[in-house]
C-alpha cells in the first residue's frame, strides 16, 4: 500500500531483512490463490507491533485483510479470526520481541489448542523500532542500548521452545531466500494446525547478522546457514530436537505432526455432543 499512499510515513531501513519476508509472503499468498482459487481477500494478516508488523501496510499488489493491533497479542487475535471464520486463511507477522517476549504467554495455550494459523516470525535479535534494546534472542553478553554492560540473560532458542510447547508445524528460514521461505510458508498454510515459520531477518542498523548467516569466505567466516538434509524425518520429535541442537541456522521443515486435530477439528466433536437449542427452548429452562 505504501507506494500508493504518500501519507504513510513508515519505512524499513535500506537492506532490512524484512523486505525478503514481505516478498516471500506475497509469493505465498499468490501461490495459495493459484492452488485454491480463493481470492487474496481470503487472507487475514495479523500484525504485531515493531518493524516487522509494518509488513501488513507494505504489501504490494492485491491486498489481503489485515489487523495491526497491540503489542504481543497476535496469537489470540488470530485465534479469534480463525475460530469465527474457519474458511479464512490467517497469517501472523511479528518479531522476536513482540512474539517471544511480551507475547510469550500465548504460545503454549495456542499450541495446545493447535489453532490453525500460520505465524511468520521475523527474528532480528533486537528491538529495532525502539532503537536497539535487547530481545529474548539477543545473544548473552551482547552490548545493546538496554544492556550497556552486556546482556546477562541466557538467550532463548525459539525452535527448541516451539518443539517443547507442542507447535505442530515448525520451519526455519532466512529472509535472504524468499523463494525457499515462500515454500515453507505455503506448507504451513496447508498444514491443519498451528504453524511457525521462524525467519532470521537481520536488522542492518542494530544487529547486522547477514555476514554471520551467509558467511564470508574471504574473511574466513563459515556460514551459519545450512539446509536441512533430505533424510531428516520431520514427523519425529526426537529427530527434530537433535536437529535444532546442532546450532547454526537450519533451513527447511524441522517438525511436522499431522496426527493431531486442529482446534476447529476438535470443536466438531463438541458440536456432536452438544445440543443446540432455540431461544424459546433456552428460556423454557427458566419458565415455571
Amino acid at each position, binding site marked *: 500500500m505504501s507506494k500508493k499512499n504518500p501519507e504513510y510515513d513508515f519505512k524499513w531501513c535500506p537492506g532490512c531483512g524484512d523486505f525478503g519476508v514481505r516478498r516471500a509472503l506475497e509469493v505465498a499468498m499468490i501461490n495459495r490463490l493459484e492452488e485454491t482459487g480463493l481470492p487474496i481477500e481470503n487472507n487475514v494478516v495479523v500484525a504485531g507491533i515493531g518493524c516487522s508488523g509494518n509488513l501488513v501496510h507494505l504489501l504490494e499488489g492485491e491486498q489481503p485483510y489485515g489487523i495491526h*493491533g497491540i503489542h504481543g497479542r497476535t496469537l489470540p*487475535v488470530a485465534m479469534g479470526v480463525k475460530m469465527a471464520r474457519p474458511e479464512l486463511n490467517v497469517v501472523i507477522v511479528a518479531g522476536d520481541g513482540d512474539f517471544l517476549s511480551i507475547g510469550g504467554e500465548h504460545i503454549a495455550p495456542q499450541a495446545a489448542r493447535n489453532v490453525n494459523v500460520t505465524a511468520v516470525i521475523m527474528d532480528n535479535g533486537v528491538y529495532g523500532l525502539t532503537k536497539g534494546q535487547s530481545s529474548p534472542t539477543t545473544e548473552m553478553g551482547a552490548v545493546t542500548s538496554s544492556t550497556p554492560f552486556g546482556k546477562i540473560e541466557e538467550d532463548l532458542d525459539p525452535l527448541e521452545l516451539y518443539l517443547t510447547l507442542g507447535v505442530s508445524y515448525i520451519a526455519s528460514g532466512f529472509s535472504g531466500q524468499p523463494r525457499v521461505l515462500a515454500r515453507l510458508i505455503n506448507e504451513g498454510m496447508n498444514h491443519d494446525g498451528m504453524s511457525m515459520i521462524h525467519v532470521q531477518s537481520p536488522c542492518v542498523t542494530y544487529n547486522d547478522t547477514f555476514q554471520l548467516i551467509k558467511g564470508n569466505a574471504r574473511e574466513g567466516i563459515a556460514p551459519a546457514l545450512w539446509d536441512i538434509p533430505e533424510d531428516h524425518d520431520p514427523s519425529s520429535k526426537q529427530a527434530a530436537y537433535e536437529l535444532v541442537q546442532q546450532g547454526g541456522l537450519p533451513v527447511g521443515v524441522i517438525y511436522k505432526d499431522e496426527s493431531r486435530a486442529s482446534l476447529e477439528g476438535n470443536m466438531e466433536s463438541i458440536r456432536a455432543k452438544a445440543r443446540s437449542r432455540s431461544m424459546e427452548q433456552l428460556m423454557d429452562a427458566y419458565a415455571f
Partner: protein
Amino acid sequence: MLMNDFVVRFAGEGGQGVVTSAEGLAQASTQVGYHALTYATFPSQILGGPTWTQARICTEPILSSGDQVDVLVAFNEEAYETHAEEVREGGVIIYNADDFTMTDPRSFGLAVDTLARSTGNNRAANMVVIGALAQLVHMPQEYLEDFVEARFRRGRDNDDEIISSNIEAMHLGRQNAAESGFVLGDLAPPNPPDYQQLMLKGNEAIALGATHAGVQFYAGYPISPATTILLWMERNLVGEGKFAYQVSSEIEAITAILGAGYAGKKAMTATAGPGVSLMSEGLGLAWMAEIPLVVVDVQRGGPATGLPTKTEQSDLMGCLFPAHGDVRMPIIAPGSVEECFFGAVHAINWAERYQGPVILMSEMSMAERVQNIRKPDLSKVPVEDRLTYEGGNGYHRYSGNELSPMPLPGGPGAYVANGSEHDEMGDTTHLPSRHIQMTERRFGKLKLLEEENYESDNTGASIALMPWGGSKGPVREAYDALREEGVDIAWYYTMFLHPIPPKLRDELRAKELVIVPELNYQGQWANILRFHRVASTPITQYTGLPFKVSDLVSKVKEIMAEQKEEARA
C-alpha cells in the same frame, strides 16, 4: 395479621443448605403466584465458610432483598450470633437443634437433619425448613406439595418415593413449628401475574439477552462473579457458526473477541474488575480500529482481589475510561434481573450500531440473585446488525467523519484495521489533521447511541434521587417510602450511563440537587454527573453489601434538610 411481605434469612456454613433452602422457598412461592427475590453472599472458598442467603416473598413485584428480617434460620451458632440483631421486632429465629441449643426467647429449635433422616431421605433437610417457615405464615400445604411435585417429578423409577419423603419432611417441619407456638401472621394470598414468567439469576438473564441479540462468539476466563456466564455459553453457544471457549487469560479473551468482531461475528466476553483492567489495552484497540464487541463487567469489591464474593459499584470510572489515550466507553448498567436481559440485548445492538466496544456493567448482587421476571416478548425486542460494505475493492474503510460500512474478510474492501492512528484506508499516519479527523469521527459516532427513553417521576420537585445499576431496587423502594411520607422529591433512572439520554441530562441540569446513592467510596456516578454540569451529591456505602432501604430514607432526608439550610443561608 395479614402480611404482604415475608423476609427470611438463612445463615450457616457453606454446604448446610443455606442456598438451597432459600431458593426452594423462593421457587415454591413463585410457583403459586408470589413474587420472590433472593440475595446471596458466599465465602471465597470451595467448601464451608460462613454464608447467608435472604429470600423475600411478596404479593407485589419486588425491588430489594428487604431489610426487615421476619425469620432467621440459623444453621449454626456463629450464624445466630452474627445475624440475630437483623431480626425485626416480633420476628422469629429458627435454630438448627442438631447443631446447637440456645435460650433466646424469640427462638425455637428444629432438628433439621434428624427430622430429614426420619423420612428416609437425608437430603430433605431444606424441606423441613421450608415446611416450618410455611407454618409461621400459614402458607397452605398444597402450595408446597405442588412445588415438590414440580421439582422432583423427573420420570425416574423412584420419583414417588422422593416426592413422598420430601412432603413428609415438610410436614415434620410444619408440625414442629406449630408446636413451638410461634406465629407471624397470615401471608396474604398470592396475586398471580397474568403473564408468563421466568425465574432466573442476573447472569443467566445476561446470557439469554446476548443470545437473543445474536451473539455468536464468546471467549472468557474464570473469575467470580462472572464465571457462570462463561459456563452457560460453553453449554449453550454451540452449533454451526457459533463458538464459546475458555481461553488462557482476560488478555486472550478480549483479543480473541476482537478478532472475531473484526471477522464479522457478534462477539462478547464477561469478567469482573481485575479482568477489565487486563482488557483495557484491547478495549482501546477496539475503539481505535472500530471493531464491535461487548465486555460484561460483573462488579465485585475491589481493587486487586478485593472482595471477590461481595457486591460493589466501584468500576464505573474504570469502565468509562479503561484505556490510555482519548477514550470514553459506552456503558449500559442494568438495575434488575429483568434489565440484565434487555441490557445485554442493547449492548450487542449498540456495538453493532456504532461499530465499537460496549461495556455492560452488572454486579455480584444481581449476578447471584434469583428473581421471577416477566418472560420477555422477543417479538418486541429488536435486534440490530452492523452496516456491512458490499461494493468493490479499493474501499476506504475509515472514510468520512462518521460511521462507514464495515467490510468483512473474505469479501471485497480489504483494509487494515489499525490500532495506530490511521488514514482513511487504514494505513498508519502521524499527520495532525488525521488525528483530529479520526478522533472526532470516533467520538462523533457515540451520537448514534443516544436513547430517548428513561424513567422519571414527580419531575416538578427541585431535588431528585437518581441511582444507577443494581442500587436501583432499594433506592426505588426508598423513593416510594419517601413519597408516601409526603416528601417532595423527583425520581430519575436510566441504564444508559454513556451516552446518557440527552433529554435526561438536560432535566437533571435543571435540578437544584441530584442525590446519587451508590456502592463506592468516591461517589463515581455523582462525579460523572458533575462533569455533565449537574449539581449532584452521593450517598456512598462500601460494606460489600447492598443498600438498606431504611438507611437510604434517613440519609436522603438528612441531605434534603441540609440543602434547605444552605438555601436559607
